[in-house]
């Protein structure tokens, strides 16, 4: 495959010409992550030196125009390796920090990383978030070893997360992906992935870089394309995932539209593949699962329910083009419930999501309006889940998510028949 050099910024082109080739590429997409980037680069550097001392490795920071000195920190971060390693790596680990071209977003940053990986001829790559506080050198081993030594093409992350964390993942992305494609990938939009050079080439050959994939839709796109493309996939247990406190710029509405919009587009694209799939199966899991404490999370359930109720009051006219009368009636009844008893059941929720997928397929509304009309329902469902698992431990909460997944699988025929 030929990669157009001109798509890369000049400084990146120069660096690639200097380096010539690399075995391993680790990508870090960043935007104003000065508080955490130091730690992430140190962990990645240490991971490469410790677990891949004989490989030529490059760390690529694809930056979205940070104004807080993130790129400088990537270049200048140092680690005293004498205290960590007995053996020195054969090759020095190069670091490249480059801005990316295209639509501002995580996906465009990843595209630059894919381009550079392909140009360098890397056999294995991985990407990690720049705002991680819990990353360790072992993450690099876990994400890359299945590719380098076991021949896998795609490694999804598996984390210990707080039961309230990852609510879009838990209520929509994971169960829909699992039900449609039959693979139990627990964190399809985890943010950290390992992948082969072959898969990077495949990603790069797709014409999606002007869509939501260029933004937050990149994660679900990478996972789904790896499954649908028949690549060899697995997951690796990385431990706890702890982020830097939330960036206020990461607005829920935009993230929701981008991520769920990508999911719907992929569902449309791969209909012929998922319609035949019955049941689900586990995928190989690497890493040693251990109990890990997670940070407590503050939630404002009252506010979420308030937004759900406002949606029920105001959006009936919009919903009647998407949902049937029975579902709208059920939602009206839920909105009458007071907080301790507030409950949006699995059956109704799954039917809502499948009806939204069908509405997208039948083009009943503009995509943005369709997805924005789902947000109040999502908040209602999330509040209901929080109330349901409030007194449960994380494992028991996982059981509640498992029941939801079973409901998605049970109703899959409804989706296929309604297509």
């Amino acid at each position, binding site marked *: 495959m030929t990669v157009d050099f001109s798509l890369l910024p000049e400084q990146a082109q120069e660096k690639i010409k200097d380096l010539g080739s690399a075995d391993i590429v680790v990508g870090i997409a960043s935007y104003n992550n000065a508080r955490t980037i130091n730690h992430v680069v140190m962990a990645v550097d240490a991971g490469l030196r410790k677990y891949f001392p004989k490989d030529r490795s490059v760390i690529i920071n694809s930056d979205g125009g940070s104004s807080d000195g993130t790129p400088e920190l990537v270049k200048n971060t140092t680690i005293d390796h004498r205290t960590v390693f007995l053996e020195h790596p054969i090759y020095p680990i190069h670091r490249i920090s480059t801005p990316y071209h295209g639509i501002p977003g995580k996906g465009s940053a990843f595209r630059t990383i894919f381009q550079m990986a392909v140009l360098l001829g890397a056999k294995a790559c991985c990407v990690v978030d720049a705002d991680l506080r819990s990353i360790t050198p072992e993450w690099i081993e876990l994400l890359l070893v299945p590719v380098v030594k076991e021949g896998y093409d795609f490694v999804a992350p598996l984390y210990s997360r707080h039961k309230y964390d990852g609510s879009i993942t838990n209520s929509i992305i994971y169960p829909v992906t699992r039900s449609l494609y039959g693979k139990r990938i627990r964190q399809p939009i985890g943010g950290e992935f390992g992948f082969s050079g072959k898969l990077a080439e495949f990603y790069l050959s797709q014409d999606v870089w002007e869509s939501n994939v260029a933004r937050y839709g990149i994660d679900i796109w990478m996972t789904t394309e790896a499954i649908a493309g028949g690549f060899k996939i697995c997951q690796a247990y990385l431990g706890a995932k702890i982020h830097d406190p939330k960036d206020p710029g990461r607005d829920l509405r935009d993230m929701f539209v981008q991520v769920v919009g990508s999911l719907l587009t992929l569902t449309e694209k791969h209909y012929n593949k998922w319609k035949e799939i019955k049941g689900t199966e586990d995928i190989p899991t690497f890493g040693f699962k251990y109990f890990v404490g997670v940070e407590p999370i503050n*939630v*404002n359930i009252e506010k979420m329910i308030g937004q759900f109720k406002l949606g029920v009051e105001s959006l009936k006219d919009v919903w009647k083009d998407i949902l049937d009368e029975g579902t709208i009636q059920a939602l009206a009844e839920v909105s009458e419930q007071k907080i301790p008893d507030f409950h949006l059941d699995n059956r109704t929720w799954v039917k809502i999501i499948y009806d939204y997928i069908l509405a997208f397929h039948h083009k009943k509304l503009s995509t943005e309006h369709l997805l*924005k009309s789902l947000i109040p329902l999502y908040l209602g469902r999330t509040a209901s889940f929080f109330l349901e698992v409030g007194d449960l431990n994380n494992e028991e909460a996982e059981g509640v998510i498992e029941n939801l997944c079973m409901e998605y699988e049970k109703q899959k025929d409804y989706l296929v028949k309604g297509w």
Partner: protein
Amino acid sequence: MLRESILSLFSTGYSFPGGSFLSAVVGPLKTFFTNLFTFVIYLVVMVIILVIGFIIASIIQRFTLKLLDTIGFNNWSDKVGLTSILQKGEVRIPPSQFVSLVFYWFLVTAFLIAGLASIDLEMTNTIVSVFFMFLPRFLSAILVLILGYLFSSFLARATLLAGVNAGLKYSRLLAEAVRLLMLIFIFAMALEQLGLATGIVVAAFSILFGGILLALAIAFGLGGKDVAKKILEGNMAKEEEKDDIQHL
């Protein structure tokens, strides 16, 4: 006496302008019948044109209907709200059928006008010239109304969704206000397009639109200052209640 006078007319050889008495009677009759014959021929031509028009309109209606059904026009109409506009106007047939009927009657009217032109009378000629002069304005006004309505619906829905997702309790009211303002604006544009009392339309629109905006500004500025204060205070208080959920 009278009898004599009449007989004298024949006997004295009184000459009528243009010939004899017989020719004086036959001449106008001949002209009349010639004109009548010409008119009947024109009428027949007009009827033939009209019949051809009905046939062509019918063929084009069927073709349009098939084409619209093939390209999924009805689904698109459902999506953009055209179906609901038609239903509000008590039109119970599918949008594709409605559009094909509009084509049909438009073509029939056009052929009728063409037929009238063939009669070549002053009155029909005036009708024909007025029709063709007014047609482009009429069509563009209809287009402005249809596109404007669709755009106002889209904008109202966007306002509603943005308001609900921002937690504004009066989102519906806001969306309806946006729709109303847009419809007033579009209606004024369509009237101006038709060229009907342009000056009055522009003046009325300016007064109405300006008045509404002024009223809103005064209402927000004076009547709503306490509400605005409460909203701002509420938002500031809510800042402290923000949750830490990572949605992804």
